[in-house]
């Protein structure tokens, strides 16, 4: 039996007396479509930061394909095949869409080490960048500055960059957050069509998205996994209902159930 694509073991993280991760366990087999839900402040983005190496855990382990990567820095984990999107856009706003994706590929392939060659002469990088843009129907926007795009399209660029990193593991942190519902389908279509070989962990508040997309769901509450199961199991779980209806209500999430 092959090792799971991602394994999170007893992950702990505290800032002083506050435990933001309190013994999180999570296992994603290769190709998983796994959703992480939970009320505000449950530690979902913290978990993404712990997996990607933005934060170091106080204790516990993160394993990628069975190998511990807990000691590795963010850049090293990226090179091992972890990519993420951000809850709030983290784009190169003053650069064109093409240049944004170009950077992702250039840093992955090592092209960005070259300083005596024209960036435009890297045809392989440009062609691959355009392939990614084409698959997300962004080619017509390639020459536009990112900040000139509507927010929904900016979210697509966010995903295009992550895909251009050719990830084995993709972490989507609320990919549809802030997108007007009229543009929502753009994001959902893209997520539905992701390469089945990529293991995907998605954080999402919109239950429609979660149920459409995920075949497993983990519920994170107060820094620990409350329960895990299929969408049917989760929607039938009384504790989950109480967490969402009891505490999750009124915290201002666009797509809360």
């Amino acid at each position, binding site marked *: 039996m092959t090792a799971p694509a991602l394994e999170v073991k007893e992950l702990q993280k505290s800032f002083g007396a506050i435990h933001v991760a309190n013994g999180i366990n999570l296992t994603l087999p290769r190709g998983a479509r796994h959703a992480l839900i939970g009320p505000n402040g449950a530690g979902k983005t913290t978990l993404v930061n712990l997996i*990607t190496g*933005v934060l170091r855990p106080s204790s516990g382990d993160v394993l990628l394909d069975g190998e511990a990567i807990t000691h590795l820095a*963010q*850049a*090293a984990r*990226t*090179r091992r095949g972890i*990519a*993420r999107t*951000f809850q709030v856009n*983290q*784009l*190169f*706003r*003053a*650069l*064109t869409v*093409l*240049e944004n994706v*170009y*950077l*992702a590929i*250039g*840093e*992955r392939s090592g*092209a*960005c*080490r*070259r*300083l*005596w*060659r*024209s*960036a*435009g*002469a*890297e*045809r392989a*990088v*440009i*062609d691959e960048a*355009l392939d990614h843009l*084409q698959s997300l*129907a*962004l*080619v*017509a*926007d*390639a*020459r536009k*500055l990112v900040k000139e795009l509507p927010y929904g399209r900016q979210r697509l660029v966010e995903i295009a*960059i992550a895909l251009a*990193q050719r990830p084995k593991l993709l972490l989507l942190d609320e990919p549809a957050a802030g997108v007007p519902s009229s543009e929502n389908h753009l994001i959902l279509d893209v997520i539905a069509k992701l390469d089945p070989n990529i293991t995907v962990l998605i954080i999402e508040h919109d239950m429609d998205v979660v149920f459409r997309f995920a075949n497993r769901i983990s519920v994170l509450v107060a820094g620990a996994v409350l329960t895990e199961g299929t969408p049917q199991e989760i929607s039938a779980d009384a504790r989950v209902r109480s967490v969402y209806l009891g505490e999750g209500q009124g915290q201002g999430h666009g797509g809360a159930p």
Partner: protein
Amino acid sequence: MDANKLAPTGAAGSVAAARADAANALARRDRFRIGEALPWVIGLAAYLVFPNQMVLGGQTLIMILFALSLDLILGFAGVVTLGHAAYFGVGAYAAALLVTDLNWTEPISGLAFAAVFAAIAGFVSGWLLLRYRGLALLVLTLSMTIMLQQLGNLFRDFTGGYDGIPSINIAPLFSRFDYDLYGHAYYLYCLGVLFVAFYVVRRIVYSPFGQALVGIRENTARMHALGSPVHGRLVVAYTISAALAGVAGALFAQTNTLVTLGVFDFDQSASVLMMLILGGAGRLYGAFVGAVLYMVLQNILAKMSPAFWQFGIGLLLVAVVLLARRGLVGVIDDALTGLGGYLPWRTWGKR
């Protein structure tokens, strides 16, 4: 032509056209444009029109080079430093000591010698300091330059202390062109060196590496997430920047025939920063516009009254920072864009 709308209905041709269009735009962005000849035409014209101003002209070219070196790290990579005079100073002293202590007077190899020393200084300090950003980095670069200055004062026998190193007499350029009192040969020498340095910087900023520097400036966190060795990239850029600042310092030593510890003054670091902000950081030609304006204004206003000069440059800076954040070249960009949408040079996005 909206390729996105047409794509699903099978108009693959328009997607292909949009792809080619985008790829071409990227491939052609570093072609030399007609407007880029302007600074060099002006540089040569100045030589013919103001033959009596060539000493000021040479000093201005040196400051352009200094500001250009700062532009690479500040304008493109977004690293704000207040210690760039350190590398100018190291280059100046390296070039001076090469002549006075080692009796090596050939000027061009002198520049290379200075570049190497400044690059070493840039590499070591960059490797140590570029882990920090913002205020911490400002203070660290500032203190490092002060420490270097005091180090120079400590080893007085070697550096001449505050009296400096006098009579740095270099050999004729290409063992042929001697220097006259009016600085004619010096001016052309500086113009040639500036051109080479400009070509180097221009190539770098249009390279994939240069694109990564702009990426670091625009969003460092995302570059980390892309697996970019951000610190390494910055150290490389900083080392090149320091080497070029060292060349500027070496030119200063060679044309001035005197170097004192004044080259490490805070004033130097601040002036070069002001020139770059004035002209526009991160746009290559900002260094040209800023340095020329600064030097010419200094010359004219300071002749009237030193207070006039200080006040004048202060007022101008305030105006630029408040009204034209992207510098004077940014203002010209906007004006030309408004007129017809054609820019004779490329810009790196509006901020």
